[in-house]
């Protein structure tokens, strides 16, 4: 039986923390009570994807670091207001560069899949309100 509430092993978080610690513009990483935090679900998926790729495929973390620095520099070169950039938007740009460089995806594949996803209403499968309980286990059934 699949364990539902599996938690990461205790050594995982320090390991991930140490990957975050060496990233550029560290003071710009959004945090909540000192912990790495995210405003949107896609941000944590982009983050988790990158760390998982690093751990599973074994490419050096420095390669992502370098892509992130490059992505931030490209943004700075194109913009006048240098203070206004979003860390995870740059993160995603860096991940895309890395994935293209590694030959995991092409730009065209990404563009067309993105369009497909945008064209699909996110709630198409489950729209209507369900106003009654879907199951009731009465009290004292086995008592």
């Amino acid at each position: 039986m699949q364990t539902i509430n599996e938690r990461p092993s205790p050594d995982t978080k320090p390991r991930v923390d140490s990957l975050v610690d060496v990233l550029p513009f560290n003071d710009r990483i959004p945090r909540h009570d000192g912990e790495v935090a995210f405003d949107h679900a896609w941000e944590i998926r982009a983050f988790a994807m990158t760390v998982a790729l690093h751990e599973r495929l074994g490419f050096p973390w420095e390669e992502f670091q370098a892509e992130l620095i490059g992505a931030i520099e490209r943004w700075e070169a194109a913009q006048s207001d240098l203070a206004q950039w979003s860390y995870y938007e740059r993160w995603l740009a860096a991940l895309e560069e890395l994935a293209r460089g590694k030959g995991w995806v092409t730009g065209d594949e990404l563009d067309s899949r993105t369009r497909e996803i945008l064209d699909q209403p996110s709630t198409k499968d489950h729209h209507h309100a369900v106003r009654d309980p879907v199951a009731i286990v009465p009290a004292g059934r086995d008592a």
Partner: protein
Amino acid sequence: MTSTHEKIQPVEGLAKHSDEELAARAKAMESILVEKGIIGSDAIDYMSSVYENEVGPQLGAQVVAKAWTDPEFKQRLLADATEACKELGFSGMQGEEMTALENTDDVHHLVVCTLCSCYPWPVLGLPPNWYKYPAYRARAVRDPRGVMKEFGLDLPDSVEVRVWDSSAELRYFVLPQRPAGTDGWTEEQLAALVTRDAMIGVGDVRHPEG
């Protein structure tokens, strides 16, 4: 949603990417990598669980603590959770309704999305990975008491369990019972006792020590 759009910055001098577009790009990347077998979605889920409690607005604990200390707010919350949550200063998701389900000595509520992962994001932040797993979606309906036991919640047999299906139009969250031994506590102290799992209904709130 305008407030989140304003935060998004242009990519390489191109047109502004909205949050929706960024979400779609991240999803596109993930689906292609998984399809090609470069990485498994379980590996991504695992890494996202490291910080999953740090995502999103997470106003739920505040909402619950206020309901515990302010009976009039509680009434408004149970009557119309969407409106009551706005009082605490978030605009919520447009066109989507939320309902708070009050646990009592006799009835315990459990929330699931049987088809996908509909979830009251403005109140609870990011859904935990298990919320979208088929194992949870099916078993929460078939064997809710068994699921709760796995999360360490062993309800007395005298309690009726009701399972509610969140959808895109109507999302549920649970108003747990205030734990004993917290008389005179401030809202802030109480909010620290409220767990995400308690607001989904799979877990209990924290209890004061001693």
